[in-house]
């Protein structure tokens, strides 16, 4: 399929716009000098991924992304930024790292592996019936994927206990 064929489909145009906005926002997240701007553009990138799920018809996953990532995770990032230092204008601390080039290389290779494995696994074949409804997702989570699901919840429990241990006051002192 040539690019002109591809671009005449309205869905592909929407996809292209969302994907470009997401990539742009993701670059700003790591490139900006202001940590609050980084959080704001991270919201844009995550909203883009929710929009892609809506395009696939997976509304449940899309709104879960909005609820969990945009509504809770990034808000907690912001909370952390606000109670430690809330830079206005240019940040006094440089948001940079000496190993930025190895990090970029790893990011690029992760992208390469993911893109290659996805295209190699599905090729051009159309997936007719996705896991769209909340019903299907619940069904799969508690039958085929029950062991990974339980493992993830165990890891989360461990993280929760760890958080409480770190945060509580030592009773001896």
């Amino acid at each position: 399929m040539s690019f002109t064929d591809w671009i005449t489909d309205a869905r592909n145009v929407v996809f292209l716009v969302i994907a470009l906005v997401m990539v742009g926002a993701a670059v700003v997240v790591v490139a900006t000098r202001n940590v609050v701007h980084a959080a704001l553009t991270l919201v844009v990138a995550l909203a883009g991924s929710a929009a892609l799920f809506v395009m696939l018809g997976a509304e449940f996953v899309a709104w879960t992304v909005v609820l969990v990532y945009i509504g809770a995770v990034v808000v907690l990032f912001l909370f952390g930024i606000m109670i430690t230092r809330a830079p206005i204008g240019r940040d006094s601390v440089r948001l940079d790292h000496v190993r930025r080039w190895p990090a970029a290389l790893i990011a690029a290779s992760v992208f390469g592996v993911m893109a290659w494995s996805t295209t190699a696994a599905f090729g051009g074949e159309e997936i007719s019936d996705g896991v769209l409804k909340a019903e299907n997702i619940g069904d799969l989570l508690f039958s085929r994927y029950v062991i990974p699901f339980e493992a993830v919840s165990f890891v989360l429990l461990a993280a929760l206990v760890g958080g409480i241990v770190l945060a509580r006051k030592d009773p001896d002192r």
Partner: protein
Amino acid sequence: MTGFVERVFDNVWLAALVKVVAVFALLLVVVILLVWIERKLVADMQNRLGPMRAGPFGVLQTLADGLKLLLKESVIPRKAELGVYMAAPIMALIPAFLIFLVIPIGEPVTVGGTTITLQGMDLNVGVLYLLAMSSLAVYAIVFAGWASGSKYPLLGGVRATAQMISYEAAMGLALVPVVLFASHRLGGEVPLIGTMSLSQIVELQQGAFRGFVPGWFVFWLAPSFIIFMIAAVAEANRAPFDLVEAETELVGGFHTEYSGFRFALFFLAEYLNMFNLSAIAVTLFFGGWLGPTWPEVLPGWISALLPIVWFLAKTFVLLFVFIWLRATLPRLRYDQLMNLGWKRLIPASLAWLVLFTVVTAWRAWGAPWSS
């Protein structure tokens, strides 16, 4: 006329446009009324008159105030972070308008051959959408506080994040029994049939039990409703949970540095959120638009309009509760707020969820040792 309406609503895009404009207009009118009602009620409770001059009983006072704010000079602090500062009031309005789109405000109306649902869109994950959208409201407050470049707004923003994150958890947990109960009603003993669609949840509350008591979910899920209402007051940043804009401590909280029309937008968003939360409570617990319409006694167009009247009447009863709380209760201290959220509401909603699930499963499938 009928043909024209039919043609408009047959076209998906035109129908969506008409509905969005209608929702926008409805929300603006409701807010204008709500601000006036609040001022009148609080004045009554404090033995004052409240607004009296603009229009009959001062009903046009909100319009006059809005016009005044529109024409006022907008002062922008020199240290403000301009882009985010300008965007924050708009960020406050967007989720407030979006939430209302999924709430059914009336019975589906049939004009000619087309059925018009009185709902912006009927998502099959409606309840999740409500939670997702209400979790976005905090951004406007945080960014307004941060971008003002001044200390009191920043403190207001920090308080807002902690408060809204805490009470969102309680609110989400309080709504799980609603989804469970709706699915139980819908599927009966068949597992794996459930619903999170708001129009379906309203329809499941039809009918009556013991002769005259309507089948609203609140009679089964009263603890959920109470937890939801407390969390809703905190989410809307209303007294007694208005620490975000506590004027005795923080000047004006997150909107201290906003003036003129940008301040009006924050004000509008606060009242929209209050109305939205009441409308959500009515939809989930008080049967939404359900109510007697007497189609055989009244002319057709009146009984077609009555569901909307019922919906608005129920919503305004809950809004009265919001205003009543504001006029009655003193503001909580910050540590009391956090204690109530994390040590009372969240454990209470978890305990209620477990209790409700066990009892429902027991009634549907019998005791665990019986089979």
